[in-house]
C-alpha cells in the first residue's frame, strides 16, 4: 500500500518526539513538563513498535515499548511526587521559580 510503511510511522514518532521536546521547553507548569516527557516517550514507543513490525527487530521492539510504558508509569509516579514536593516548598508549580541552583 502506498504511503503507509515504516517511514510514515517514524514521521509520526518524530512529530510526537519534537512536540514533547517543545512542550518540555515551553511549559512553565511542572506537570506540563511531565506531559512533554510522556510525549517524548511515546514518540520513541511508536518508533519501537513500528520497527518491530517492519524490520527484523520483531518482538523485541514491542517488548521495549512495554518496558518503556511501564517505566514511564513509574516515572510519572515519582515525578508527580516530586512535583507535589515542589508545590509544597514553593507554593506554586511554576518550574521557573525553582531556580535555586542558578549559578
Amino acid at each position, binding site marked *: 500500500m502506498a504511503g503507509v510503511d515504516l517511514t510514515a510511522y517514524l514521521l509520526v514518532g518524530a512529530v510526537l518526539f519534537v512536540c514533547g521536546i517543545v512542550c518540555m521547553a*515551553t511549559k*512553565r507548569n511542572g506537570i506540563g513538563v511531565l506531559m512533554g516527557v510522556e510525549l517524548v516517550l511515546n514518540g520513541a*514507543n*511508536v518508533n519501537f513498535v513500528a520497527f518491530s513490525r517492519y524490520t527484523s527487530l520483531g518482538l523485541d521492539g514491542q517488548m521495549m515499548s512495554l518496558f518503556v510504558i511501564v517505566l514511564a508509569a513509574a516515572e510519572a*509516579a515519582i515525578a508527580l511526587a516530586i512535583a507535589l514536593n515542589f508545590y509544597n516548598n514553593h507554593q506554586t*508549580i511554576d518550574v521557573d521559580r525553582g531556580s535555586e541552583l542558578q549559578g
Partner: protein
Amino acid sequence: MNGAALFWFFAAVTCAGAVAVVVSQNVVRMAVWLIVALGGAAGLFFQLSADFVGATQLLIYVGGTIVLLIFGVMLTASGPYLRIKTSPGEGFLAAGVGLLFVLVLMSTVLTIDWNAGRLKLAGLGKVSADAYETALHKEGLSESDRTLLEQAYQPSAKADHAAEPAPKSGPAVAENPEAADSHGSAPKPGDVHSVPAALAYELNPGRRLTSAEAARLAALFGQEKAVVASAMPAQGDTIRPLGLALAGLRPDRDLNKVHAKAATTPGYLLPFEIVSVHLLVVLIGAAYLARTKRRRVEAS
C-alpha cells in the same frame, strides 16, 4: 485501503493531539489533548498489530498515568483553571527549534532506506554476480521488476574482499550461507570455476525502496520467507509470544531458526524482574515523597 485510512486517521489524531498539548495553556486541557495523542498512539499500535502494547498503552498510560497527572494538577493548582503562560518570545524560539528538530528528524527518516537494512539482514544486501544475473534473466520477468533490479543494485567495489570469505561449498551468495541454502537457482559447486566474473552486487544507497519493492526483490531472489519471517506476525496475537518472552522463552525466534543447534535466544526474564522490583521501589518511593508532611512554619 482501510488500513491506510485508519493509519492516517490515527496519525492525524496523534499529531494533532501532540500539537494541541504544546499549544494549549490550561494544564487540564493539555491533559485531555495528551489523552487524545496517546489514544491515537494506541490506535497506531493496534494498527501495527501490537495489540498488547496498545491495550497496555490504554490501560496504563491513558487510564493510569494521565489520571495521575490530572490528580497532580488538582493537588498543585493554586487557583481554578490555572494558567501559567509562556512568554511569546520563548514560544517563538521553541517553535523555531522544534521546527528545526523536526526537519532534522524527518530528513533523517526520509533519507534512510530502511528496507536496505531488511534486505541486508536477509542476506540480500550483497548478492553474487551470478545470482543477480540469474534473477535478472529469469523467464517472465516483468519490466518493472527488471527496472527495480537494475536500480536497486550496483556492482560492489570490494568484490574481491567479498568473494574471499565465501564458503568452500561455493554457493555464490556472499556472506550468507543460510540464504544460499534456500537459493533455488544457485550454481552447483562443480561449476563454480566456470563462472568467469565473480563480482558481487550490493544495494544502491541512492535508490530508496518501499516495503513492497523490498518484498518484491526478496521474492525475485527467492528469499521471501527469510525477509519477513523475522518481522512480527501479521496477526494481533502477540500476547503469547510476549508472555513467553517475559518468561524467558523466545519461540518466535527459536522455532523459525534454520540451525536448530544454535543457542536459544535469551528472553526478557531478567529485565522483567528488574522492572518489577523497580516498580515496587518506585511506588514506595512515590508514596514516601508525596506523603503529608508537617508544613514548615512560614518564615515571613
